[in-house]
């Protein structure tokens, strides 16, 4: 299904990007690095913005339209095929690959980002609908050298296994801190039900969130 949703322009963009020269090995290492970034381990350097040397690909589709986006405090003037989802724009055009594509149908939560402070699904929206919105991705939440307390708590509580869902989990967890969620674990589970973890790290995810909500030391 993800192939279906991917436009030819996206594929070209991917081919042009440095990250796009995919072999199985580079894909896996990329995946591993992205997971570490998402969980903010102190191993690899991270970036809230794409590195300067990385060119932001424009769509050469005849239908491309100008789109201005504010992401992690920075403005981007882009030309995008109107079909480009916000998720594909973040990943393929802005190289902010912390947000993950899981189901691509709004069912798994791996693509969760903040739009004007509220958590939303970036796979279920077109980038062109977000002009004027303030978009925050996991890269804008914290960095390895200055982690958000929620990221630190996920590390401390071992709230992940493969890490693929982790950035979405953390984006939801950070948003949850300002939502009308009751104090009990059951209420946290209900508020987090839009983020699926196939490794089943749910108990530790709840623990990590409660740890932050209860003002515990986050290591």
């Amino acid at each position, binding site marked *: *299904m993800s192939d*279906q949703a991917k436009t030819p322009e996206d594929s070209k963009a991917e081919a042009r990007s440095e990250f796009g020269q995919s072999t199985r090995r580079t894909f896996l290492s990329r995946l591993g690095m992205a997971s570490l970034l998402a969980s903010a381990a102190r191993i690899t350097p991270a970036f809230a913005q794409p590195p300067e040397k990385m060119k932001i690909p424009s769509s050469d589709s005849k239908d491309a339209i100008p789109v201005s986006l504010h992401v992690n405090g920075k403005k981007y003037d882009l030309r995008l*095929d109107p079909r480009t989802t916000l998720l594909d724009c973040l990943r393929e055009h802005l190289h902010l690959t912390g947000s993950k594509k899981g189901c691509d149908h*709004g069912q798994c939560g791996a693509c969760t980002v903040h739009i004007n402070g509220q*958590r939303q*699904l970036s796979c*279920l929206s077109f980038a062109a609908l977000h002009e004027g919105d303030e978009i925050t991705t996991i890269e804008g939440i914290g960095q390895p050298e200055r982690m958000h307390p929620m990221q630190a708590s996920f590390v401390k509580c071992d709230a992940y296994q493969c890490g693929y869902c982790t950035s979405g989990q953390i984006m939801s967890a950070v948003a949850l801190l300002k939502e009308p969620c009751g104090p009990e674990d059951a209420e946290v589970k209900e508020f987090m*039900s*839009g983020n699926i973890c196939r490794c089943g790290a749910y108990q530790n995810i709840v623990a990590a969130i409660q740890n932050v909500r209860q003002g515990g030391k986050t290591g």
Partner: protein
Amino acid sequence: MKTFQITRPKDNPQATAAAGKSKTAQQGADIRFIAGGTTLIDLMKLNVEQPQNLVDVNRLPIDKVEATPDGGLMIGATVRNSELAWHPLVRKNYTVLSEAILSGATVQIRNMATTAGNLLQRTRCVYFRDTAMPCNKREPGSGCGAINGFNRNLAILGTSEECIATNPSDMNVAMAALEATVHVRGPKGERSIPIGDFHVLPGNTPQRETVLEPGDLITHVTLPPPAPGNRSLYLKLRDRMSYEFALASAAVVITAANGKMTRARIALGGVGTKPWRSTEAEGELTDQPATEATFRKAADAALRGAKPQSQNGFKVELAKRCLMHALKLATQPA
């Protein structure tokens, strides 16, 4: 996904004019309004919907919740589900609406989905969502894969030989019990549609789900003032505790005094091809004592016309028990 253009109208008349050129406002529309996109973009990715033009209504001034002079509520079309569910006036006066919305989807989706979008939410019938399958709703005349197919979660009320697709919305069920009115601005002006007349039964035209015509922009929904002393709630039964569509649900708004119910508004979800208001059940409850025997009579009345399919016969009794339990909760001493 087929490509499309995006139109950004500056006001409601421009939006109506832009969408008025569409051949239909129903399944397969070539021009679609888009707000949260949680249903439409999903269906576009599946090629179930292939609009050539999207009219972005997110910047239109139809995004407020306001008290009306008569003590009711006006809800803008693009008010997000989260905002509506947690709005103090909704929490206070329309508990059933808040509970219904919060029982559906997830926080992320409720932060995107809108009031009007939820009114127009499409069925989750797997045959509708898969273009390789026959579906009279998606492709009139192609047949119904669900009848004699996978129909465990499909409708038992309001069905036809052509279609048994369930209306999946929770919000709509509460709106039906609250007797909401849908306000539309169309090419010929403004009009108001009672929620019960807004959705239509599938009959032999299941591709038509509402009375909307090309260019009809839902601008807002109004709720009448809350019935004095009423208690309302939404009870939803499903295969798992969260993030799942209803197998059966009940929205009840009950006014009771001295153990007798003086007013009842009842709607069922998960079992109908449209949000299922049951005036039959209401008739069995009004001026009757709040007892299990009364509740059973009402439940039997509500499901009297049920036509179960090969896999969903269990829904008949499930929906009855759902309604009975909701009535019990709404009438027991506080």
